[in-house]
């Protein structure tokens, strides 16, 4: 019985989790205030420019999440600890969510700024390829086999996928510059050349807030994964009891 309680303790949300949540709520509210009320409206683009704060923050977090996948995939291959595999998997899922946010907010902004939903510009195309790549990663994670094998396969894909990202970016940039000599030089940050200090502050603040949210999601994801494992264990135990 005490052993059970010990196990349950490991499943409860940690103190770190609580601290993160308590800081995240006011930070999020503050970020929303900064974005919508405090920061000035952009002169040329108008209020639509405000989407840029979420867009850039999500993009940064998506890349960060995929970097975490890469690091923990490597760690898993060296140590074979299940925890590392879980972190890589959860981070991959969060990364795909953030990439989806980037890919939906981007066109909304681009429609009013560039007057087109989509251009095959290096950053856009790279993000799209990234999105497909990590969907494939999640598909590998959902394969039906023992976890050691699945974790190993997913780690291999997580590593070569991340190695591929800079090559994709470079090749698309060359391709683009071969087709049209004049590239939309700054991409999403075209809005941010000569950024107003208050805008810059808002941007940095929203990046921080979303990074915090990333860590909360990571914790939550890990917690859910652990609960799933626990349920599986209990089910197996119950089954054994019924058979005997």
């Amino acid at each position, binding site marked *: 019985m005490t052993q059970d309680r010990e196990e349950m303790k490991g499943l409860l949300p940690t103190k770190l989790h609580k601290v993160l949540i308590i800081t995240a709520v006011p930070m999020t509210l503050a970020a929303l205030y900064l974005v919508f009320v405090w920061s000035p409206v952009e002169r040329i683009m108008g209020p639509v420019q405000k989407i840029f704060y979420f867009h850039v923050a999500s993009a940064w977090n998506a890349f960060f999440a995929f970097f975490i996948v890469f690091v923990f995939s490597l760690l898993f*291959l060296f140590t074979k600890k299940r925890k590392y595999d879980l972190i890589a998997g959860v981070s991959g899922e969060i990364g795909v969510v953030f990439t989806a946010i980037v890919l939906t907010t981007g066109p909304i902004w681009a429609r009013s700024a560039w007057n087109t939903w989509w251009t095959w510009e290096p950053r856009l195309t790279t993000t799209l*390829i990234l999105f*497909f*790549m990590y*969907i*494939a990663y999640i*598909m*590998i994670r959902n*394969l*039906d*086999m023992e976890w050691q*094998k699945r974790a*190993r*396969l997913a*780690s*291999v*894909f997580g*590593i*070569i*996928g991340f*190695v*591929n990202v800079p*090559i*994709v970016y*470079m*090749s*698309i940039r*060359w*391709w683009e510059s*071969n087709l049209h000599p004049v590239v939309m030089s700054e991409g999403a940050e075209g809005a941010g050349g000569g950024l107003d200090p208050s805008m810059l502050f808002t941007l940095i603040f929203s990046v921080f807030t979303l990074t915090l949210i990333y860590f909360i999601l990571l914790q939550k994801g890990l917690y859910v994964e652990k609960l799933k494992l626990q349920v599986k264990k209990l089910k197996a135990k119950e089954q054994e009891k019924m058979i005997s």
Partner: protein
Amino acid sequence: MKHLLAPALAIARKDLYAEWKTKQTITTMLIFSGLVILTFSFAFDPSNQAVSALVPGMIWVITIFAGILGLNRSFTTEKQHDHLHGMMVAPVDPSGIYIGKFLANLVFVLVVQVVSIPLLFLLFDFQVPAYSSIFYFLLIIFLGTFGFIAVGTLLAALASHAKSSEMLLPILLFPLVTPVIIAAVQATRLVLTEQEGAAAALSWMQLMGAYDVIFFAAGFLLFEYVLEV
């Protein structure tokens, strides 16, 4: 070296010999590439002169689609009688298995290209601007196919563990090979449609070379983890 190259060559020879006897995979790949060319002729009017600009892209579409067919079979056939386990318990370096499989797949795709690319040129009445560019063209074909197969062999082994490996492989493979496909299509276009294209294609060839080296090394190092049971 003895534990690496000798088993690699043995595996490649075994695959090629088995294919020589049955001619199953190659025939399917060849017929399939012929059908792709047929579909292109419906999609793009071959008598239209502007269509010749699309030929470089067609070459690589044929390569990818026919290549996927071959890659899919490369490891699933080994599963039938647990051949893969046999290879793994043999006292050889797992990277040797990778090189062997890689060589066999490379030969398959190159054979398909040797037949289908002249056929494509013939049916679409494509004129090569200068015969001196043929050498560069062959080099580009080799570099591009090398990269595609290097990643493809690793991912085919990875996907072969899944029940629906035929469906999984293209989804894993396509996003990863985008750089080499972009480079290959651009370089082929420069060499085949422009007079002095070879010099301009050089940077693309360097990109393909770098990609080939990186992903061949990645396959070489990571193959061990893909095979383990």
